[in-house]
C-alpha cells in the first residue's frame, strides 16, 4: 500500500529538478587535486601530536605556572646545578614543549577555519573590514608563534611564514576595491598549497581548549 505521503510524480519531478539545478558539479580538476594531495602527503606530520598528548593537556595547562617558576628559579642567581636539578629542568622543558605544541594546534585550527571560510567567501560580499581585523588578530599570534619554540621545527616554521604572508595580505585588504586583491590572495594560497599543508599539520580529533592563550 502506498504511504499517504508518497507521490511518485512529485518525487520524480523533485529528483530531476534537484539533479539539474542544485549544486550541479562541474568536471573535477583531477590533476590539480592530485598534485595537492601528493604535496600534502609529502608535507604531512609537520608537527606530531601523539594521542597521549591530548590527555596531557590539562596537566600541561596547570603546570604552565610551574614552568615559569622553574625557569625563574633555574636562572636565579645562586641556583644549584645538581643532577637532580638538571633532570627537573629537562622535564620542565619537555612540558613547556607540550604546551607550545598544543597552543600551536589550536592556533592552526583557528587559522584553517578562517582561511577556508575566506576562500569559500571569495566571491561573496563578505565584510572586508571584519576579515582584515580577524587576519590581524591571527597575524599577531603567527608572529608570536614564529618567536616561540614551536618554530624550531623547520617545516612548521615554513608553514608559519607562508601563513604570515597570507594573513598580512588579508589584513591589508582595501574595503573599496578588494575583488581583484582577494583573487590574487586566493591564487597565491592555491599555488603554495597553504591549506592542504595547514590541514596536514593539524592532528585529527578535537582541538584541546584547556591551554587557550598559553602563548
Amino acid at each position, binding site marked *: 500500500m502506498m*504511504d499517504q*505521503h508518497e*507521490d511518485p*510524480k*512529485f*518525487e*520524480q*519531478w*523533485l*529528483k530531476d*529538478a*534537484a*539533479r539539474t*539545478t*542544485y*549544486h550541479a*558539479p*562541474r568536471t*573535477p*580538476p*583531477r590533476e*590539480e*587535486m*592530485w598534485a*595537492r*594531495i601528493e604535496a*600534502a*602527503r609529502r608535507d*604531512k606530520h609537520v608537527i606530531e601530536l601523539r594521542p597521549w598528548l591530548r590527555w596531557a593537556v590539562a596537566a600541561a595547562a596547570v603546570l604552565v605556572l610551574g614552568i615559569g617558576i622553574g625557569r625563574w628559579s633555574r636562572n636565579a642567581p645562586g641556583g644549584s646545578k645538581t643532577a637532580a636539578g638538571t633532570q627537573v629542568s629537562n622535564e620542565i622543558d619537555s612540558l613547556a614543549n607540550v604546551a607550545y605544541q598544543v597552543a600551536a594546534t589550536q592556533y592552526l585550527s583557528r587559522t584553517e*577555519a*578562517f582561511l*577556508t*571560510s575566506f*576562500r*569559500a*567567501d*571569495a566571491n561573496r560580499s*563578505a*565584510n572586508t573590514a*571584519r576579515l582584515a581585523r580577524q587576519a590581524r588578530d591571527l597575524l599577531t599570534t603567527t608572529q608570536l608563534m614564529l618567536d616561540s619554540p614551536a618554530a624550531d621545527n623547520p617545516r612548521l616554521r615554513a608553514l608559519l611564514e607562508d601563513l604570515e604572508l597570507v594573513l598580512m595580505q588579508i589584513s591589508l585588504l582595501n574595503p573599496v576595491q578588494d575583488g581583484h586583491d582577494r583573487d590574487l590572495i*586566493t591564487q597565491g594560497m592555491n599555488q603554495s598549497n597553504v*591549506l*592542504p599543508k595547514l*590541514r*596536514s599539520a593539524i592532528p585529527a580529533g578535537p582541538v584541546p581548549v584547556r591551554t587557550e592563550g598559553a602563548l
Partner: protein
Amino acid sequence: MDESQLIARVRAGDSAAERALYDAHVDRVYRLAFRLAGDDALAQDFTQETFIRAFDRLGSFRGDAAFSTWLHTITTTVVLNGLRKVKRFRQREADIDDAHEIGVVQRHAEPDLKARLKQAIDDLPEGYRTVFLMHDVEGYTHEEIGVALGVETGTSKAQLSRARAKLRVALADFAGEWVR
C-alpha cells in the same frame, strides 16, 4: 587488475596504484562533496582531504564492505565536519555583524523555482538534507547511506521520506509543475 589487487599494491607503496585508485573514485567523491558543499573550492578541499585520509588509513580497510562504501564513509565525515566548521565560523562572523546587515541578508526574496528549491534544500535539517542529496540526487542506496553515515537503513529511509515531505510543503506554490 581488480580493485583488491590494486589496494594491495597501494599498501605495498606503489604510487602508480595510488593514482589508479584515485582515478577510479575521484569523480564520485568530488560530486558528493560538491553537492553537499555547493562550492568548488570547498569540494576540492574535501576531496583532497578524503583521499589523504584514505591513503593514510588504508591499512585499516579490512574489505568487509566495498572500497567505495568505505571511501564514501570518509567523504561524508570529512564534508559534514568541514561544513560544520565553516558554518560555526560564519555564525561567529554574523554574530558580530550589526543587526541591520543580517536583516537585509535574510529578507532577500527568491521568486523563481530554482532559487526556491535551493533554499528549501538548504533549509532541511542536516541529516535529512544529506540523505536526500545522497539518495535522490546522487543515486546512493539506503544501504550505502546507512554505512556512510553510521545509521540504520530504516533511519535513512525515514529521513528521506521526511525530507521529501518538507520539500513538498516548501514548494507547494509550484504544485502545477509536477501534477500536469
